[in-house]
C-alpha cells in the first residue's frame, strides 16, 4: 500500500517535471515537441541507443545503491566519487598485469574494483572506529585524495608512454566487458543488494540502525561492527561502478574517467529516498536523459546542457511533490472523512 503511494508520487513528480521542463524550453524558444521526440529517439528508439542507455545506467545504479544503502543504515558515505576512482585504479592495475582466461579475468577485475572501493571506504571505517572521526567528513575528504592519487598513478607509474594524453595502457582484451555484460552485472549486484538488505539478518540490522540507532543497540545489534560493514559494502558498490566504467568503456584509465557518476549516485539516492528499486529506476531515467542529450542537440538544435537543467528540475520537483502530496492529499482525505458521520469510520481503539 505504501508502495502504491510512493509509486504515484514518483510518477507525478516525473510528469510534472517534464511538463515544467517543456514550459521552460518553450519560454527559451526551443522547439518543445521536436526536442522531446529527439530526446526519446536518441535515448531509446534509434538502433543501439537503448543498450547505451541501459549500460550507462549501470554505474549510476551502483553509485546510487552505494549512497542509498549507507544513508538508510545510518553511516553517511559521501565518498562515492573517490571510491569509483580507486575501484577503477584497482581494476586497471589488475587488468594490466594479470593475464587470465576471459571467464576468470572479468570476475577478478570486477572483484578488484569492489575491493578498491571497499578499501577506500575502509579508511573512513577505520578512522571512525579507531579515533571516532566522523565518516561524513572523512569520506568526503577522501574524494579529493582519491582524485589526486589516481591522477598521479595514471600520469606517472601507470602512464602509457606512447599516448599523448594522461592515460594508462588498455587492459588486456580478456578483461573487456560488453554493454550487455555490464547490464547483467548491474542486475546481479542489484539482486544481491536486495537480498542482503531485505532478506539477510545484517540487512535487518542495518535498517533498524538507520531508523532507531539506540533501539538497535539495546536490542543487541553490534552497531560499531555494522557501521564498518556498511561502509565496506557500499564502498565496494561504488568500486564496482569504477570497474564497470573502465572495463565496458575506454578499457584504459583516462583522466576524468569517473565523470560525475559519484555525485549523480548521491542524487539518485536522494530522489529515490534510499529505496533500492527507486535507485534503479531513477538511474535509468537520468541515464536516458544523458544519453539522449547529444542526439537532441543534433536533431533539435537544443544545447545538450539543457538536459542538466531537466535533471535538476526532476530532482527538485520530485522532492517537492513528495512533500506537497504528503501534506495535501492527507488533508483532503481528512476533510472528506470529517464530513461523514462517525459510524462509518473504522472501529475506535477500544470497543
Amino acid at each position, binding site marked *: 500500500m505504501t508502495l502504491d503511494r510512493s509509486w504515484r508520487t514518483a510518477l507525478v513528480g516525473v510528469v510534472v517535471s517534464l511538463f515544467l521542463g517543456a514550459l521552460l524550453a518553450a519560454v527559451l524558444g526551443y522547439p518543445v515537441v521536436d526536442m522531446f521526440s529527439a530526446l526519446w529517439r536518441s535515448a531509446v528508439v534509434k538502433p543501439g541507443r537503448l543498450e547505451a542507455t541501459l549500460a550507462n545506467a549501470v554505474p549510476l545504479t551502483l553509485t546510487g545503491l552505494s549512497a542509498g544503502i549507507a544513508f538508510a543504515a545510518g553511516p553517511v558515505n559521501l565518498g562515492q566519487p573517490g571510491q569509483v576512482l580507486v575501484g577503477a585504479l584497482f581494476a586497471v592495475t589488475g587488468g594490466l598485469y594479470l593475464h587470465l582466461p576471459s571467464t576468470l579475468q572479468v570476475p577478478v577485475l570486477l572483484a578488484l574494483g569492489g575491493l578498491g572501493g571497499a578499501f577506500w571506504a575502509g579508511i573512513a571505517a577505520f578512522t571512525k572506529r579507531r579515533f571516532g572521526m566522523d565518516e561524513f567528513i572523512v569520506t568526503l575528504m577522501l574524494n579529493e585524495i582519491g582524485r589526486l592519487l589516481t591522477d598521479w598513478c595514471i600520469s606517472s607509474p601507470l602512464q602509457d608512454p606512447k599516448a599523448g594524453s594522461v592515460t594508462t595502457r588498455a587492459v588486456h582484451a580478456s578483461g573487456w566487458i560488453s554493454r550487455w555484460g555490464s547490464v547483467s552485472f548491474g542486475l546481479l549486484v542489484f539482486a544481491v543488494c536486495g537480498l542482503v538488505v531485505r532478506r539477510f539478518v545484517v540487512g535487518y540490522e542495518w535498517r533498524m540502525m538507520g*531508523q532507531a540507532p539506540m533501539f538497535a543497540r539495546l536490542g543487541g545489534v553490534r552497531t560499531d561492527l555494522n557501521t564498518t560493514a556498511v561502509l565496506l559494502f557500499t564502498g565496494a558498490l561504488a568500486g564496482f561502478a569504477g570497474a564497470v566504467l573502465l572495463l565496458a568503456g575506454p578499457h584504459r584509465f583516462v583522466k576524468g574517467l569517473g565523470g560525475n557518476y559519484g555525485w549523480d549516485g548521491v542524487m539518485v539516492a536522494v530522489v529515490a529516498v534510499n529505496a533500492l528499486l527507486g535507485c534503479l529506476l531513477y538511474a535509468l531515467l537520468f541515464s536516458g536523459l544523458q544519453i539522449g542529450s547529444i542526439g537532441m542537440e543534433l536533431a533539435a538544435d537544443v544545447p545538450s546542457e539543457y538536459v542538466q537543467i531537466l535533471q535538476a528540475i526532476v530532482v527538485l520537483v520530485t522532492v517537492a511533490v513528495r512533500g506537497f502530496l504528503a501534506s495535501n492529499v492527507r488533508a483532503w482525505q481528512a476533510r472528506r472523512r470529517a464530513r461523514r458521520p462517525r459510524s462509518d469510520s473504522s472501529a475506535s481503539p477500544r470497543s
Partner: protein
Amino acid sequence: MVVVSFVGVTKVYPPAVRALDDVTVDIDAGEIHAFVGENGAGKSTLMKVLNGEIRPDAGRVEVFGSTVSYRSPRDAMADGIGMVHQEILLVDQLTVWENVVLGNEPTTRFGLVDRDRARCEVAATIASAGLALEPDAIVGTLTVGARQKVEIAKLLHRNVRLLILDEPTAVLTPPEIPELFDELRHLRDDGRTVCFISHHLDEVVGLADRVTVLRDGARIATLAAASTSVSELARLMVERDVLLTSQRTPLQRGAPVLRVRGLEADITGSSSKLGPIDLVVHEREVLGVAGVEGNGQHDLVEALVGVVDCEAAELRVGEFDLRPLSILDRRRHLAFVPSDRRTQGGALTAPIVENVAMTHHRLTPGFSAMRGWLFDRGRAKSLATDIRDRFDIASSSVEAPLGSLSGGSQQKVVLGREMSIERPLIVLDQPTRGVDVGSIEEIHRRILDLRAEGRAVLVVSADLDELLRLCDRIVVMFRGRLVLDIDADDANLELLGRAMLEGIDARTVPRPAPPSAPNEARP
C-alpha cells in the same frame, strides 16, 4: 466571559483516525482549565488546533466571539495565545533574559538590541508573574523545571493572555510541581487564562477550576473541579471503574536470580556517583526501584544491560557472570523494556513485525535460517500477530508502522516482545510512563503474570502508587545509593517519599515535629 469556543471541531488523520470528533467546549477568561483523557484521546490535538499548529478539518474556533483561522502559532500569538510544549527548545548558552527576548528584541533607535531595556523588561515580567527565575542565569545550567518557566516567561513577554501547557508536570521532580502550580494560580489571579493537559488526575483536581474529559477524540464532560473526584474523572476517561488496587497475590519467592554486589558507575548529567549498590532479586519476586529522576535508577539499569561501563564485585543472573558480556550476550539472560519506547524500545517508522523481531533475530532459533544469515520474516510475523491478539492491540496489520499505534499500544508491543524473549530476569524501566489508564492496568497484570511464572522482575518507576501495587519489595535510590529497602506491605507513601526526597530511612530516623509528608505536598 468566554475567551475561546471550540464549535464542532473535528480532525481526522487519514485513513480513519478521528483525533477530534465534533468537540464543542468553551474556555472562560481567568480560569485554569484542565484537559484529561487517555493517550490518543485528543487533548494535545485540541490544544494544537487552538495554537494554530493543526488546522481542523471541520468545525471552527472562536476567540472573543469571532471565528479565527490560524495558519501558524505566530497567528495565535498575535491574538495572545501561546503554548509551552513538552519538549523545551532554548539556547543553552544564553541567559534567561536573552532567551526570553529572542525573536522579539527591543531595539534602540539605531536598530541595535537594547540590552538594558530588554533585561529590565524581562526582570519585570518575571517578578510580576511571580516566577522563581534569575534573569541572568545561563539557561544551560538550569533544571528542566526552571527551563519550563523560561518558556512561560517567553510567552508572558509576548503578552500572551491564554497559556497552554502540554503535560507540564511530566518533566518535573515532585518538589517542583507545587511551585509551578502556585505560579499558575498567580497567573490566573492576574487575569490570565491557563489550559493544561495532564495525566495525573490528582493534580487536575487540585489545580484546575474546570476539567474537560476527552475520550476517543470526543468531549465526554466538562466539570467543575471542586465538585468532582479522581475516581469520577478516571471513570469518565475509560468509561469503567479502574481498579487502582493491587492484584498481587502472596507468592513464596524462590532462589536468587539477579545478584549485584558493589556495583559502581557514573551518573550521567550529575556529579554524584552510582553505588556501591547491593541488590538481589529472586524468582517470583517483583523488586521496585523508586527515586526522584536523576538519582541513578536509570544508570543502574544501563549498567545492568551493559550500555554503560561499571565496576562490580558481583553481577550475576543465575550462575552467569554478566560483567564480561556484551549487550547482546547479556540479552541471553535478561529481557529489557527501556524507558523511552520511541527511541529505545522500538523504531516508530518500522513495521510492527520488525519491531518484535529485535533481539530474537540473533538469539531465538527459528528467527533466522541458513546458519543465522537469512532473516525469517514469516516467523516474526507470527510472533507479531500473536502479540497483537494476546494484548488486544488495535491495528489493521502487523505490517503497519509502530508509530501508527497509540502510545499505550506501542508499549504493549515492546512489552510483548520482551515477554516472548523468555529470560529468568526482566528489567522494566518506567514501563507505564505516558501510557493511558486502561493500558496501565493491563501492563500491570502482565508483569504480575511474569512473576507468577517464576521470573525475577526489576521495575524502575517514578510512580509510587504503581510500585506499591506491583512490588514485593521496594528500594529507594537517593544520590546514587540505596537508602531504603523495604517490604512493600510495610511501605507507604510517606516512608518512600521521605527516602526519595531526603535520603533517609524514616523508620530509624525520628520524625521531625510537626510531621510532614513531602509526597502529600503534591496536590
